[in-house]
């Protein structure tokens, strides 16, 4: 049996394996512990945090679509103050790097969150979600305007000393332009993709099924789009990428790594199989053994 090396690097972060829990699908880590040993993932990304508490969107907030799920949770979270008071100690107990996913409705929101989270060594890095609407800019998401992506990255970097991940939205014409803007703004790492804007209609009620009309599509249905974006960005950008979107199996994870991702995140899969992250790590190992690949790092970008 060959000795497998699953370690990977994301800028200054060293992960013992490349499989991360995706934001919004693992609570604050502890909620999963009955099903997934919290020491297993390469890192844990907690639910999106905003300055003020948020109750999220009206019900229904979720529905299934073919090989996908459509959610409109809408960033329900306790807000910064409560997060610092109660959740920081929870994540402090975890033995793996914890990434905090942050969201805002103005550039100042992002800068403020970055500054307030800077002091805490319990946090391994920030993942900046630019999919939310920019209220000052008429409500289009930050992540759809490269100038804003640049500025968000810049403002967060200015205020946060640790690694900064910009998490891009796929709802754009040119994902490479957005990734390049994030790099120009100083991002250390890029996450992609967030969910695809989508909807479902209830034909009995003759109206949108979700309380919020629109929602985000995730799961296997979007994997081919996510993979394309990772491949495009990896072809053009030098900083490491966390690939995600529909990863259900080790083989899916390998596709993303071959497309250029240095690590992957698993979201929807956990909602169906709470032990998915552990299973996917095992399946990656099986592939490596079968193909006689010793170091996962050697696979990164091999399909480019």
């Amino acid at each position, binding site marked *: 049996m060959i000795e497998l090396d699953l370690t990977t690097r994301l800028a200054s972060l060293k992960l013992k394996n490349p499989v991360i829990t995706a934001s*919004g*699908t*693992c*609570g604050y880590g502890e*909620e*999963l512990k*009955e*099903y*997934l*040993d919290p020491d297993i993932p390469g890192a844990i990304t907690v*639910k999106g945090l905003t300055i003020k508490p948020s*109750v*999220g969107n*009206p*019900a*229904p*907030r*979720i*529905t*299934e679509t*073919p*090989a*996908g*799920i459509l*959610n409109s*949770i809408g960033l*329900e979270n306790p807000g910064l103050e409560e997060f610092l008071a109660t959740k920081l100690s929870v994540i402090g107990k975890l033995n793996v790097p914890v990434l905090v996913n942050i969201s805002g409705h103005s550039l100042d929101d992002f800068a403020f969150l970055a500054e307030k989270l800077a002091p805490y060594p319990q946090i391994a890095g920030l993942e900046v979600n630019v999919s939310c609407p920019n209220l000052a800019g008429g409500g289009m998401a930050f992540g759809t305007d490269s100038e804003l992506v640049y500025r968000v990255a810049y403002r967060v970097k200015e205020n946060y000393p640790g690694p900064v991940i910009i998490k891009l939205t796929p709802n754009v014409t040119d994902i490479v332009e957005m990734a390049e803007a994030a790099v120009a703004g100083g991002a250390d790492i890029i996450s992609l993709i967030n969910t695809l804007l989508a909807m479902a209609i209830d034909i009995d009620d003759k109206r949108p099924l979700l309380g919020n009309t629109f929602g985000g599509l995730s*799961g*296997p*249905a979007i994997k081919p789009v996510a993979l394309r974006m990772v491949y495009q960005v990896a072809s053009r950008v030098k900083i490491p990428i966390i690939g995600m979107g529909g990863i*259900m199996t080790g083989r899916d994870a390998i596709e993303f790594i071959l497309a250029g991702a240095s690590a992957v995140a698993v979201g*929807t899969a*956990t*909602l*169906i*199989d*709470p*032990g998915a992250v*552990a299973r996917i790590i095992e399946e990656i190992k099986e592939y490596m053994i079968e193909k006689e690949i010793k170091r996962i790092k050697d696979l990164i970008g091999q399909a480019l």
Partner: protein
Amino acid sequence: MVIGLMVEVKSNQRVGNDYYLLKIRALELTDSIFPGQFVHLKIGRDNLSFDPLLRRPFSIHDLSDEKDIYLLYRVVGKGTRILTDYKTGDKLDLLGPLGQGFKLDFVSRKILIIGGGMGIAPLYFLAKRLAKQNLLKVLIGGKNKEEMEYFIARFRQADIEFAVATMDGSAGFQGTVVDLWQKDNTQPDYLFACGPEAMLREVQVIAQKKGIPGQVSLEERMACGIGVCLSCVHKTNKGNQRVCKEGPVFSLEEVVFDD
């Protein structure tokens, strides 16, 4: 790590117009199951298929003497339609029991149980447990006789006092189950309710007026069923609560219904 358990289908029978009774063997679980809890089933025989993708939640309807679990389900969409194809001996991936069930420490009380439609499924299990030590009255309601027939037979068999309301009057009282309660004017010490939200809202209003405490079981669309995704939250006077984790059973007083 408690990952989904593969359980065996013992039977899967049509017991009403679009109702099925599913009996599954899951000895490992039955001792830890309480009325009001639910299981989360991965439906779809080809476990390589990602459609359907999500698990489906179903309340525990009953436990057999041999500790098999009964689920009662109505065919409404893709998942439940596929579920009807399962035969004796087929395997199902089950996560559960999940959620907080009814709090049950009642002795010698006058208890009212009100159920509407499929909301009656978990109440049957509850009623059986409570009937031993309490004075029980069950009111159930539905569209018509056909929908109620199965429940009528079960409650009759269990020797539990009950009355029926149907919208078309084809069985029992004509009207909603809340109308029936209003009419028969039962004044219990405590009540339990499960059913469509509109019904629960009315029950809450009346109970408040009469000063009757109680518990309700809620339904929301779910993804994870284990508290990580916040898909299933419902408004309460303590803020949003997860139906899959803090619920599905809540105290009647705390739930906030939108209008």
